[in-house]
């Protein structure tokens, strides 16, 4: 697979080898970028252009028309707001409760610490699909169906975030705790003014990973919401897919898909540095 690239490792051919790597990279990037490009191109075409054969693979002039049409049809504004709320509450909530748990586990001795640690660990083995019916029943009993609480709180526990913060807190020198104690500041003060300011990079990293996790949820939001105004965008766009008898408005489907895709991709691109760090650290 890599032989084409690696055969050229001898020194005299250095430039040729680099050229080939550039070419291979550009080709691969075009290939993995193609679905996105294709989706975008279709989203700017009229329905006549979409059903034309062969399709033109260049953007057309119906960008605004398609995007406003589908925006109004599926209430895209509300869908995006809901997804934004879910992604933010889930990511910040996971980070907050994980910092508190990790702080308790690292800086205190208390009965049942091992049990707590293992209970948090076990949540790794209980993804949404394996507890779906009963979780739904719990949420229904609480009266949380079709609410933001129901959408977010059952997703908030996080073993990965707790372990990451635990690892990180363990690397903080003990002298800092001693200094804080001498200054007479209590544990919460220490958490607030020493630990938190030092956790910036970890928080940013986890934020990216957890934001994507929250934004991309499908099964749980599908179950727990039933009104249009509580839907999230990844669920909402599937309603634009034309069925047999409807006009093949794939340009509108793609416009909706592009809008659902953009926010998380932008988060990844702009926070790439932290995202790679967060992903690797949190899975260690």
């Amino acid at each position, binding site marked *: 697979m890599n032989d084409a690239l690696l055969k050229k490792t001898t020194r005299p051919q250095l430039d040729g080898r680099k050229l080939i790597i*550039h070419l291979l990279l550009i080709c691969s990037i075009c290939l993995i970028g193609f679905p996105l490009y294709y*989706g975008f191109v279709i989203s700017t075409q009229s329905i006549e252009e979409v059903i034309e054969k062969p399709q033109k693979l260049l953007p057309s002039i119906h960008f605004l028309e398609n995007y406003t049409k589908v925006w109004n049809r599926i209430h895209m504004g509300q869908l995006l707001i809901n997804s934004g709320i879910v992604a933010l509450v889930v990511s910040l909530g996971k980070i907050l409760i994980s910092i508190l*748990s990790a702080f308790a586990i690292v800086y205190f001795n208390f009965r049942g610490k091992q049990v707590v640690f293992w209970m948090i660990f076990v949540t790794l083995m209980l993804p949404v699909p394996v507890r*779906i019916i*009963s979780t739904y029943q719990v949420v229904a009993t609480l009266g949380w169906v079709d609410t933001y609480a129901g959408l977010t709180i059952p997703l908030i526990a996080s073993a990965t975030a*707790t372990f990451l913060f635990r690892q990180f807190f363990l690397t903080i020198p003990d002298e800092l705790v001693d200094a804080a104690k001498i200054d007479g500041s209590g544990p919460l003060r220490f958490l607030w003014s020493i630990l938190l300011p030092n956790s910036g990079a970890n928080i940013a990293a986890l934020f990216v990973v957890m934001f994507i996790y929250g934004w991309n949820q499908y099964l749980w939001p599908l179950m727990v919401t039933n009104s249009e105004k509580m839907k999230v965008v990844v669920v909402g766009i599937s309603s634009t897919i034309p069925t047999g008898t409807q006009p093949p408005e794939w340009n509108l489907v793609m416009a909706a898909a592009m809008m659902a895709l953009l926010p998380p991709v932008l988060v990844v691109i702009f926070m*790439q540095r932290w995202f790679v760090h967060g992903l*690797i650290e949190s899975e260690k």
Partner: protein
Amino acid sequence: MKKSIFKNRWLPYLLIAPQMLVVLVFFFWPAFDSLRLSFFQTSPFGDRQVFVWLGNFTSLLISSEYHRSVLHSFIFSLGVTFLGLTVSLFLAALANQKIRGLPFYRTAVLWTYGIAPPVSGVIWLLIFHPSYGILTYLLSMVTSYEFNWLLKGWIALLLVIFAATWAHLGYNIAFFLAGLQTIPKSVMDAAKVDGASGFGLFRWITFPLLSPVTFFLFIMNMVFSFFETFGIIHAVTQGGPGDTTTIMVYKTYLDGFVHLRMGSSAAQSVILMVLVISLTVIQFRYTERKVFY
């Protein structure tokens, strides 16, 4: 462990309370309840529960429908895993070379991490569309084979495999890149001095040194394709045509929420739980070890 520890009787319990509450109410209780439900059959009106011992499990065991679902889940997951790992290892190896424009290239491969699987599904659905899809059109120029996923199960499987793989590329590439960067330059140089080059260098040095990452990613991709691809199936194929793309998670959902066979659905949840527990245990037992020995 820390030597300096704060002393407080109730504060640590207060600090872990939020996470424990969520874990107990939304993770442990539902998991135990699923386990309990898997021994019962609920009457069609939901008013009566009959204890059936392992009845739900034995009927799954002899159900050819369930066998197909398991088989197709494994085809799907192995497909996603092998395709994903191959493509991302190739891309990561390229994006790890010392060339100009590297930051651009890395962003251009890593952005895929942001793609939601169902959104990927919708885009690939158009690419594979029997009448308007670009792939279908291109294939129709070279072959007269009817490339229609609505009629041919294997094409539907291919469609969801492509969609899932595409949405998971960024994740795989990030780990392979990190893995490649941990390989000491001295090892590569030594191998080159010994005459290794080209494919040999990759086959005998790079790939074995990457095996812990590859193994870790193998498990994580299996978990991903089993448990996080529901949205693709639900939005794109709805398990069809027939039941070719009815993977286990989708069938659990169908039986629980559409056919209202709670007992069977709970039993399927328990089977999935055993599967994810096994995968997690394997991952934690073996990833720290040096797989390449």
